């Protein structure tokens, strides 16, 4: 059933998957989480919240879609949703520490309701900050 050409194509697809995974990992490694949670609805910014207040945010849309997002101390998760597949609930919590290892990165996505909740990231400073330089022991010459 399989010929050599077939295996080559399958290997190419798997290699592509590995390459993309590595690239994404390296991209996320270069970021740091902020305290800002941004909620997108229908591809537009709906609202922004700050971590640390332990609040339940309800996103109601005119078409009857309703999502409740719990925003806690260190992250957020989808608490309730009236979407048919409930995959957004299964996606679990995004925290400042775990977003590199999640399938959806720093997002929780509810496709049927078109809601996307994002933990806003910033670039990690590539050079050591002045405070770090101060604390380092550099011997006087």
């Amino acid at each position: 059933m399989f010929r050599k050409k077939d295996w080559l194509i399958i290997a190419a697809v798997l290699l592509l998957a590995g390459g993309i995974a590595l690239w994404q990992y390296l991209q996320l490694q270069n970021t740091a989480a902020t305290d800002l949670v941004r909620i997108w609805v229908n591809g537009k910014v709906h609202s922004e919240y700050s971590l640390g207040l332990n609040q339940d945010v309800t996103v109601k849309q005119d078409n009857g879609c309703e999502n409740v997002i719990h925003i806690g101390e260190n992250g957020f998760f989808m608490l309730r949703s009236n979407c048919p597949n409930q995959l957004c609930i299964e996606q679990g919590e995004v925290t400042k520490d775990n977003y590199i290892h999640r399938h959806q990165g720093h997002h929780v996505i509810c496709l049927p309701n078109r809601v996307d909740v994002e933990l806003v990231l910033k670039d990690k400073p590539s050079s050591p900050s002045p405070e770090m330089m101060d604390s380092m022991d550099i011997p006087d010459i």
Partner: protein
Amino acid sequence: MNTKKITLLGIMLSMMLILGFVEKQFSLVPGVPGIKPGFSNIVLMFALYRMDTRSAGTLLLLKVLLSGLLFSGVNGMAYAFSGGILAFGIMFLFIRMRRLSLPVVSVSGAVMHMAGQIICSRFLMGSWVLAFQLPLLLVSAVVTGVLNGVITALVINALTKSKLSFLPGKAAKEVKNK
């Protein structure tokens, strides 16, 4: 289009709908939209392989339309349509070329289905968020694609050997000529 063909297409369409419905009842990887076995592609590939393009295209369009109306809604229909069209295109091309084996045809169909859905999400969600899942989706496309391709090849072989006369195409002609 004769009665035999209409009946056969009806049976195939209901098989696709049932397979699609069963798949919606559980998620293979928790929380990841888009990962499913895609068994209805077995029926579609069979149609592409053994029947004419128009019948296969009709099956695809009706499956997307009815599955959307019955189960997943307009939003789901948009995703299924954009994925389905791309998958159909590449599988049509590869099957007509007759150079690649069915598992690879099926894998490329699965990859294009995924690509179509990610492009669709670009317009519905407003960003490429779904692209985060690309590596996982590609791996699952390979696994489910190979599985579906092998099953399709087995089904086609078994039905060709059995020489059932209800099949359009080669087998039916062979039987008629005898």
